[in-house]
């Protein structure tokens, strides 16, 4: 049985995903900078992965990707496949390394945008889009990654604000609390012979 608190994170993520895709399609995609449009969706997926972990990140990536593919009448599964990888990878980074540096979201955002842009182009090539790979195309990819990098920190802050309060405890904080309240630290455990 899941408590009402247990539904908070999925509900907030569902609202976040829906609003992100609608705003992206209706407004953000129509703003172009140096000929490329800004893509917020991989940044949001990476931020959710970083904040909530690999499993919520992967599920959120799949859902947002599928919604993008359905809403834009694209080949189903292409964007979701890419976003699963972004959400899962960002979540694993949090779980394994627990990065505390303030610029981590910037690096993760840049990597997520690069992966989404290059991955989407490669998938389109594999699905039969015939286009020459020119320096111009590579330049556009680089510009897209730069813009994504610039937006990574504000998007991360926004996502953190939305999901804060419904996140499971930070693993480091949980460990520290367990030690201070006693019982779980092996140093404090009473020996059997005493």
């Amino acid at each position, binding site marked *: 049985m899941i408590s009402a608190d247990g539904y908070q994170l999925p509900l907030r993520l569902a609202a976040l995903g829906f609003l992100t895709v609608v705003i992206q399609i209706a407004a953000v995609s129509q703003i172009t900078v140096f000929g490329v449009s800004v893509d*917020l969706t991989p940044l949001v997926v990476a931020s959710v992965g970083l904040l909530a972990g690999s499993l919520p990140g992967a599920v959120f990536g799949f859902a947002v990707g599928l919604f993008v593919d359905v809403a834009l009448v694209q080949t189903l599964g292409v964007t979701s496949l890419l976003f699963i990888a972004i959400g899962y990878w960002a979540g694993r980074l949090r779980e394994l390394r627990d990065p505390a540096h303030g610029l981590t979201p910037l690096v993760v955002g840049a990597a997520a945008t690069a992966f989404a842009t290059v991955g989407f182009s490669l998938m389109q090539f594999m699905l039969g889009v015939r286009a020459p790979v020119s320096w111009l195309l590579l330049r556009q990819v680089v510009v897209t990654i730069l813009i994504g990098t610039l937006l990574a920190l504000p998007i991360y802050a926004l996502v953190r604000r939305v999901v804060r309060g419904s996140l499971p405890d930070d693993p480091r904080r949980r460990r520290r609390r367990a030690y201070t309240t006693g019982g779980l630290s092996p140093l404090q455990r009473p020996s059997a012979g005493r």
Partner: protein
Amino acid sequence: MYDKQVRRRRAVLVLLVVVSLILLTAYFGESAGSPLHSVQRGVVTVLSPIQEGASRALKPVRDLFGWFGDTARAKKERDQLKAQRDRLLEQVVGYQVALQENAELHRVLALDDSNGLDAYDKRTVRVIGRPPNNLLLDRLQVDAGSSAGVRVGNPVIADGGLVGHVSFVASDSSFVTLITDPSSNVSVKVLNAAGDTGLLKPSVGDPLDLLVQLLPRHARIRQEDVVVSGGFRTTRLESLYPPNIPIGRVTEADPEELASDQQAHVAPIADLRHLDFVQILIGPSGPAGERAQVGP
């Protein structure tokens, strides 16, 4: 406990990847009327009012961000247009005489004008969406669909120039594939002395550069020559686009490039990156299936 968590995480990940791959494979192999396409059409129908509302509500935000680029571009355009206006004024008188003669000759020869632009009903529609990744898929979503008479293949214009054609129709919205999409091919005519014809394709990576290919190697094409849709009609096939829709102006026609690659560069007339409204040309008659996009 930890092992159980790891196993659960891996199982969910594998499940999500497998579902994505199944969807991708199933969708890719399906025809346009198949179940997955129908589901997609249904979702688009449900979402289009929401997107339309969001598009209208967020227009001030779009305009604010677009203001900086628009101002710089407008100043450059103003100077270009002043020079262009002076040249055009000289040409107008000559063209008016030619138009009169042309109309007379049409009547005398009883030429067929039924596939001209005048035969189309122009429906003005609002742009409500655009894909985020425009590098290899350049399309936009508009707020009119089959209920407004829009059909797959209808040509789309804006700012007096060709924009693309309708490629997907739901009941209240449709998707327009732009002439800058890599899949686009348009048969065109250059308005030079010889009236050279070619095939217009986008230059991938530069959204403002189109290429007229398959031109004669020694074509005499100059900068500022106007490029219009060629349009053709045979007993079985008809071009998607009616003839003589302005598309762009030649920006670069290097004789060496013409001789080696048989191509010239063209800038589109319509501002394809800042479209709020477009016009769909609803055809005179004939099923869309009989119309074909030129190209390999």
